């Protein structure tokens, strides 16, 4: 395993196989939390944290427990159980040790307890048969791509609030149009990697 391999994984998951616009995972926060730029970045930070921790934990569970005992078909159930537990513990920990950190992104932790992007990264790691390091890098890349799209979308939507769009198109409909154009833009990266 060399470093260029890790870089490839990072950028493949961040841009080419972007979670939101290429794999359509995590669409609920994509529309729900992109009204303000600061909110969307906080949400993305919380998601990166959860994705990295759950990717590592699920790798251990998969290769130390599920495969040796030949019960890989139960993976989704076990993953949901493990991720939910981890997120609850992280939230409790952040809430009681660091109030500033909790004010910054703690409130999003319960919202992404089992987000499809979080479950998605563990299943992608399994499908691609990544090692532990590769899994963590893949989670970081996926989270980075998620923040990127969330920030772009939030920036556009903040400007759209001021735009003079037709009344029936205001709010969510015009946001979906923007999402379409954003998706088409990132479609251009499709052949790379």
């Amino acid at each position, binding site marked *: 395993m060399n470093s260029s391999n890790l870089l490839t994984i990072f950028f493949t998951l961040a841009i080419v196989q972007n979670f939101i616009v290429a794999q359509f995972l995590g669409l609920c926060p994509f529309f729900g939390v992109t009204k303000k730029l600061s909110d969307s970045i906080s949400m993305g930070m919380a998601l990166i944290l959860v994705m990295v921790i759950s990717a590592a934990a699920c790798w251990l569970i998969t290769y130390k427990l599920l495969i040796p005992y030949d*019960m890989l078909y*139960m993976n989704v159930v076990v993953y949901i*159980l493990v991720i939910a537990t981890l997120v609850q513990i992280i939230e409790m920990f952040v809430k009681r040790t660091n109030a500033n950190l909790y004010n910054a992104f703690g409130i999003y932790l319960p919202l992404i307890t089992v987000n499809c992007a979080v479950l998605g990264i563990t299943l992608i790691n399994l499908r691609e048969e990544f090692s532990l390091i590769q899994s963590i890098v893949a989670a970081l890349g996926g989270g980075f791509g998620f923040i990127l799209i969330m920030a772009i979308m939030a920036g556009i939507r903040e400007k759209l609030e001021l735009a003079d769009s037709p009344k029936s198109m205001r709010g969510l409909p015009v946001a979906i149009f923007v999402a379409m154009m954003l998706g088409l833009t990132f479609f251009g990266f499709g052949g790379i990697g």
Partner: protein
Amino acid sequence: MAQIIIITVIGIVCGILIYIAYRKIPQKVQGLEKTEEISSILPGLNCGACGYAGCFGLAQALTQNPELVRNAPCALTVQDPDRLKRLGIALGMEIDASDLIKKALVHCSGGSVSIYDYSGINTCKGASLLLGGNKKCPFSCLGYGDCSKVCPVEAIKIDPGKNVVLVDWNKCIGCGLCVSECPQNIIELVPVKTKISLLCSYTPLRNINGRERCENGCLHCRRCVRACEFGAIIWNEQKLMPEFDASKCTLCLKCVEVCPAKCLIKSVLAENETPVPVATVSNTALQQKSDEK
């Protein structure tokens, strides 16, 4: 069989982990007690209608700025007097429900001259598409009554003589439908405790005197600011319009007397009396109309 046991064991281990974390991590940390207290009072539905990320998000915002509660962010709390009282104690401020109840006010008393005869569709929106309306003043009520058509309680009537709409505050429920319907953007939701209101929203964007546009418009003369002995009227230098502080106002009505354009009105009679329809001038016309019936 082994699979069943492993899944069960994972579940039990996860449960025990959460329990251990709950017990071992210190219970209280400084900085969040007040947020927790406010959050326990809020409904806890996480509906997001207030614009924050769940009830805890609103509690965080309220902790930083308790004055935010004056904007009535949570409709469920405002409707529940008991909950509102507890929220007031938690925030350390007196919250009067009547502060949060709002009524629609039309910032125009009519009287602007028509610049052309409009004979299109009989709506304000239709008229506003053509040169911004058929009135000389760009902030004038057009009087076709788009707002009265959307009003769910029929609180808005059109005064045919002055071509301006009147809001009956006894009927108005403060839903805000008329505010979003008005193409001229001259309807505003004001707190029911508002004492003095300016019935004009003409802003002198190009240094044109209001009087050139309308007989009843604000002249931006600042006479009301000088007349007020209690400092309840502040001049807004950006809009070039007076702003009224209801908490300092004693209803001496000196500003109403001194106003040369007569566009300041008293919107509440006195304490213990119910709010009345606005616009004294137009009100008499409405009275005559109902007498004729």
